[in-house]
């Protein structure tokens, strides 16, 4: 190997490199890191988002527009009518008013538990995996223990222990969060283990970043899609769990949620009396909200797993090509001269 002349070479290859770079860079808006984290808008995502946003708005604004949900009238168990859009309960309460307040209550607890469970799982999953060694062993043992604890029975036992009058919204939220964080902590731990061994984390450590900054600024943003999807699942699980608890009469004492509505409908023999307007709306809201969040979650999946995105893009391209081909054959058959040429 001969010693190449160092002076002559750089001009040429730097020019080539710059040329390659400029051809790619022009005319494209600069996107920030946050933009990269948002899912692409697809019809599916639109459906999911409109379900979630619609129900959330109903829960937020609805209670201001309806009357008192507790007011008792002498028109018991009437079907939907102009006066009461969703009919009345056995004691003459307006189902629509109850539904609006119950939706708000359910969303409240879902959001609360989602935040709490995500914080817990982020702490135990990310911090443990980053520190490694003993801390990691201890934290993953803890999350494994919580993972094998059967959730609902434990909730029932705890809820049974706490006296009814002190069983507020927060108690239920904490109980649901404590029993629900472990699975996502494991997912986050696995992701963190992979991210923390990347060179850019090592580079920031070599640069002298403090550990908490390495976690918060270098590692966490790359986990955000995973955290978002875990959060969405936590919300679904919390709403379902709370509905289940309230349905068996172990829910929060001072709140009204979709679960308590179902509980009262069950107690009032709504099913056997054929009062479908009493139990179907709350059930439907739970189902639709869960569906909406799941669809949103599938879209978040696309960010985590680019393979899915490529699959969709390929399908789209294939459809467009097929359409174009059909169009061409149509014009060809309509105008035979073109095809002859």
């Amino acid at each position, binding site marked *: *190997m001969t*010693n*190449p002349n*160092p002076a002559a*070479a*750089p001009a040429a*290859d*730097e020019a*080539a*490199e*710059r040329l*390659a*770079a400029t051809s*790619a*860079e022009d005319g494209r808006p*600069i*996107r*920030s*890191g946050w933009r*990269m984290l948002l899912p692409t808008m697809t019809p599916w995502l639109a459906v999911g988002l409109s379900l979630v946003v619609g129900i959330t708005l109903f829960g937020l604004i609805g209670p201001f527009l309806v009357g008192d949900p507790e007011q008792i009238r002498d028109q018991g168990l009437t079907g939907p009518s102009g006066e009461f859009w969703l009919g009345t309960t056995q004691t003459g309460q307006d189902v629509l008013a109850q539904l609006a307040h119950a939706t708000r209550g359910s969303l409240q607890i879902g959001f609360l538990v989602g935040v709490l469970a995500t914080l817990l799982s982020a702490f135990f999953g990310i911090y443990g995996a980053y520190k490694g060694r003993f801390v990691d062993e201890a934290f993953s043992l803890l999350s494994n223990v919580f993972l094998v604890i059967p959730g609902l029975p434990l909730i029932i036992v705890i809820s049974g222990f706490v006296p009814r009058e002190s069983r507020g919204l927060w108690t239920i939220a904490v109980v649901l969060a404590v029993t629900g964080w472990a699975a996502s902590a494991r997912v986050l731990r696995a992701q963190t283990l992979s991210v923390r061994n*990347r*060179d*850019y984390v*090592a*580079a*920031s*450590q*070599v*640069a*002298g*970043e403090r550990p908490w900054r390495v976690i918060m*600024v*270098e590692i966490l*943003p*790359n986990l955000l899609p995973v955290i978002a999807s875990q959060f969405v699942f936590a919300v679904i699980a919390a709403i379902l769990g709370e509905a289940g608890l309230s349905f068996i009469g172990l829910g929060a004492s001072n709140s009204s949620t979709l679960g308590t509505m179902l509980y009262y409908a069950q107690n009032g023999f709504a099913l056997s009396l054929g009062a479908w307007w009493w139990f179907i709306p709350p059930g439907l809201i739970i189902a639709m909200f869960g569906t909406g969040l799941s669809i949103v979650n599938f879209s978040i999946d696309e960010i985590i797993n680019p393979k899915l995105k490529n699959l969709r893009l390929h399908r789209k391209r294939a459809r467009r090509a097929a359409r174009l081909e059909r169009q061409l054959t149509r014009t060809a058959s309509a105008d035979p001269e073109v095809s002859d040429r």
Partner: protein
Amino acid sequence: MTSVHVTDLVKDYKLREGLKRTRLRAVDHVSLELTPGRTVALVGESGSGKSTIAKILTRMERPSSGEVEVRLDDGTAVDGKAYRREVQMVFQDPFASLNPFHSIEHHIARPLLIHKRTRTKQETRERVLEMLERVNLTPAERIAPRRPHELSGGQRQRVAIARALAPGAQVLIADEPVSMLDVSIRLGVLNLLGRLQREDRLAVLYITHDLATARHFSDEIVVLYRGRVVERGPADAVILDPHHDYTKLLALAAPDPERPGGVAADTGSIDRDSIDNGVCYDHYTGQWRETGVPASEARERSI
């Protein structure tokens, strides 16, 4: 001006295989000296301990024994946060060493802010652009807000170099900085490193498995085999007049179109058993030195 003195560095990794515990000696009594304005190339095959030495020098790993001393010109030892300022590293893979989430500006601004090289936002920004221009990334104000995936491999490696130099580092560890790049870009990045080294009188440790670039780019070559130094000396002397069989083998392993009888070399003349003979040739003293039992025997031991 900063120099690094590495004496008798040993790094053992503990391995567990069921109930059997062994230790793997990744680095075996290596001594090195990095002085301002000089490049030392660390050459060896995969697993010879090159990257472990880099990790120890950047304090990502603790040595099992031996010392790494970094001293300023006036003789004061560098430690703690100042160590991070003085000793920086360019990583092998430019596609992994930049955070995909952050802009180029973030990567260079952070070291500036950590080591308080700049105070105000405006000052930091100007400094970032200045650093980008120093590594030939122009127009700097268009590169700065981009994110890594929008740059080519060569451009990313230039960003990595700018990041390493941002805190004002005087010692640069370059761990195979061009092995992941296209052949056409390699020379450009190497020449950039060479230019920056001359301008700042940096002490550079250039880690590579490529003897050709090692000779082109460095003043001294240290050949590692299984964690041990088997030959050291001025770059030209080691390449043109290799004494140790392992160095000869390395030199022959590089394809050379001018070699008679084809590109591939005939290594038959070298006895493979004689490579691991526990000796080291020093071109400075012109003498062989015993390094103890053969490296493969010292390498793995049960504890």
